[in-house]
């Protein structure tokens, strides 16, 4: 048993119900001083709801929150900060156009003669960052720094203005590279040494094992259990998260290679010297039917740019694109849609979902756009299509009339996928379809992609998780510095690809 004096936060028997969904059912949770506690679970497991309750965004239906031995009611996000619970979200919510120092001290600027004392402001900010061993010029605009630094600035801000006892990091590493993530981890270790309790939410299991002391697993709003990280084997953790075995994943890799590759000379899509200055240097790309082509490359290497050129989001200024022997003349999303190309865009929130529309409306959107203004799908037909894809993709929702903004990230991603599948495309481009979603949903999407290829479609799969690309692709294209660097067959080893991405080959 742990010493109760050591506990900084105790959550007992928390339940929360949303219309039609039990978001949390009788969940207990505890956090010790100087502990890094990983919170894991599939999408819709209840992680976000628990965090929202701890930060005062939502109110629990039942249960109690005990902070430092005192029962607390967290009234609002501001109140949460006041009592020492600080949160840093996945998307950094700071202002990139003002200086680092201003960001850290915003709303708490030291004053002098009625104005802001810039000297002291910068000095304070410097001090705050030094505490985290971050050495940057605080007078520069925040936007000049990488996302990793921005995240650290966000942490510095939350520690500075609130003297936090508890720090909640919600998916802080999802847009960081390995070196940046490691830097964040050493910072977390430092804070841990100062006695701050850290709740760490992530989809990366490697990182869970790298940094956390204990793990709490949620599934479908219920507590599966809290475990000491060192004594929980990884396979067991995954099994607990999914509530089932993950042999599916192994089978998938086998399926890819056991299947006979239908070699055909004919390409369903062929790009020759396609390029756009300032965006992506001219590249060649051939897609066969029944093929998954993976695109690998670091962030900013031109992956999304390639997808946007093929789909007509950006108009290429050189080269040609041929689809089933027919040359594409006008580049626009609508034209691509009519030609049977679909793009599932990278930024789900900004480019994908239409939050205030229902699942049904989101699903039929692209199909309806292809049909135009006056060939309107009847409501009945819309429900049929929606029901079909809700079933195929396993979208968990009480009704197709649920607003998409109320869904979890993984389910939103499935809705966007459904939107494109409903148009029955010949070529499906998936730009980071597995970003920020859980292991189970990832596996489902990968499997779906292979199934589509089986049906004779071509898929382009863009992902920053190399392992995923290797597992699912028949061919792999590596991009580097906005240029196509190399093309490999699907059984290439990851070492070669990493070397190519890094520019050593």
């Amino acid at each position: 048993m742990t010493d109760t004096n050591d506990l900084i936060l105790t959550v007992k028997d928390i339940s929360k119900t949303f219309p039609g969904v039990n978001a949390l059912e009788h969940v207990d949770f505890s956090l010790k001083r100087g502990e890094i506690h990983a919170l894991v679970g599939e999408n819709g497991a209840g992680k976000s709801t628990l965090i929202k309750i701890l930060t005062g965004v939502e109110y629990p239906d039942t249960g109690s929150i005990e902070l430092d031995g005192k029962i607390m009611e967290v009234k609002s996000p501001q109140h949460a900060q006041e009592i020492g619970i600080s949160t840093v979200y996945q998307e950094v919510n700071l202002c990139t156009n003002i200086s680092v120092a201003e960001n850290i001290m915003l709303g708490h600027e030291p004053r002098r003669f009625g104005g802001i004392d810039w000297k002291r402001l910068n000095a304070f900010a410097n001090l705050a960052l030094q505490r985290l061993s971050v050495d940057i010029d605080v007078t520069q605009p925040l936007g000049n720094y990488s996302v990793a630094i921005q995240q650290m600035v966000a942490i510095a801000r939350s520690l500075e203005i609130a003297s936090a006892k508890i720090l909640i990091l919600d998916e802080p590493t999802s847009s960081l590279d390995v070196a940046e993530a490691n830097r964040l981890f050493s910072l977390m270790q430092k804070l841990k040494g100062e006695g701050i309790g850290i709740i760490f939410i992530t989809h990366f299991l490697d990182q869970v094992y790298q940094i956390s002391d204990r793990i709490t697993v949620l599934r479908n709003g219920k507590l599966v259990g809290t475990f000491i990280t060192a004594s929980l084997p990884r396979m067991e953790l995954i099994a607990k998260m999914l509530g089932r075995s993950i042999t599916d994943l192994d089978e998938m890799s086998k399926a890819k290679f056991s299947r006979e590759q239908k070699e055909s000379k004919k390409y369903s899509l062929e790009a020759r010297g396609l390029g756009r200055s300032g965006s992506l240097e001219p590249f060649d790309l051939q897609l066969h039917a029944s093929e998954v082509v993976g695109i690998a490359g670091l962030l900013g290497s031109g992956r999304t740019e390639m997808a946007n050129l093929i789909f007509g989001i950006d108009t290429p200024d050189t080269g040609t694109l041929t689809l089933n022997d027919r040359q594409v003349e006008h580049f626009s999303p609508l034209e691509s849609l009519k030609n049977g190309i679909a793009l599932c865009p990278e930024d789900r929130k900004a480019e994908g979902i239409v939050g205030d529309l229902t699942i049904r409306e989101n699903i039929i959107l692209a199909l309806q756009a292809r049909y135009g203004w006056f060939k309107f799908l009847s409501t009945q037909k819309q429900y049929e299509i929606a029901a079909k894809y809700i079933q195929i993709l396993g979208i968990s929702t009480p009704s197709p009339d649920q607003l998409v903004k109320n869904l979890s990230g993984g389910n939103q991603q499935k809705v966007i996928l459904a939107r494109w599948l409903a148009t029955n495309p010949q070529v499906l481009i998936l730009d980071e379809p597995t970003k920020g979603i859980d292991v189970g949903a990832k596996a489902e999407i990968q499997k779906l992609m292979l199934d589509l290829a089986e049906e004779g479609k071509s898929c382009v799969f863009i992902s920053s998780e190399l392992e995923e690309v290797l597992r699912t692709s028949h061919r792999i294209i590596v991009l580097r510095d906005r240029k196509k660097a190399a093309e490999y067959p699907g059984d290439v080893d990851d070492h070669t690809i990493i070397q190519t991405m890094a520019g050593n080959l």
Partner: protein
Amino acid sequence: MKNNTALLKRIRENRLFWPLIALALILVTDAIFVPGFFKIGILDGHLYGNMIDVLNNSAPLMLVAIGMTLVIATGGVDLSVGAVIAISAAMGAVLINPALGNKLISNEILTKDATNTPLVLIVLADLAAGTLCGLWNGFLVSRGKIQPMVATLILMVAGRGIAQLITNGQIMTIYYTPYFFFGNGFIFGLPVSIYIVALVFLFAWILVRKTSIGLFIETVGINAKSAYYSGISEKNIKLFVYTFCGFCAAIAGLILSSYVHSADGNNNGLNYEMDAILAVVIGGTLMSGGRFSLLSSVVGALIIWTFTITMYTFGVPANALLAGRAVLVLVVILLYSDYTQNFLNKFTDRKKVRHDATN
């Protein structure tokens, strides 16, 4: 009990709920304080009374509100509707003028109850003028990528000048009786204007709910980028809504000029842009765009005019009327604010919790 609160919440979340409550409140006030407010009599074979006045007076605003709803749903706004009303009215008056084409103009000709232009042509020219104005706005916004408020401000300012150019700077009085039918006529005892509103409403409703246009308008208003990625032509949707809004304003101009028997570039449709925006906002459509309800906006227009006529019957002088309207706006904005909504949510939630606790 649980089902009851859920049902209550669903009713409250319905778009028509607040507008209807507001309308009911005003009507109840009338019922209590203004004896005979609801009295409807028959005069010359048609109905008359306060309620009929409300309907007839609010018809032009309802029309403009219908067009404005679609514009606002895309996240835009059309400030030029008042000016378009004036242009449409001026167009009608000039074409009706029996002196048109005559070299010799005398007072006798000018005030004659006759015209050289067929009525159908007059109506079509009215509508064409307004639609063209809308098309212009649409081009500025969708092709010129000008902010809607700025783009439509151009016509708001210039439009009244254009109306005066059309009428040669004169306030033109109309003497042609058949033209008065639109603003003053009755069919089966009810004002003609109401039938026109019903027709336009039906047309608009079919257009947005029985084609995909409504869905696309909402999509563009909620997330224009997603709309673009999904192959929806944001440009054409925007061009359409501004054009349609101009068309609606043109019909409003026709009714208004017919009602007041004149075309006055400076005063026809004055402040209609603000009233129409207010009607849409009362109807619960967000200024930021997205989900909309045509019917709620129409009720919004009805609320504004019921309120106005109520103020008149209370004997509030015309110059104090605007202050009264300001109060209306304030109340509406407070009702729709997040604070009030949260308060009401908490109120119903708490009631539920308390009930569960007693079980």
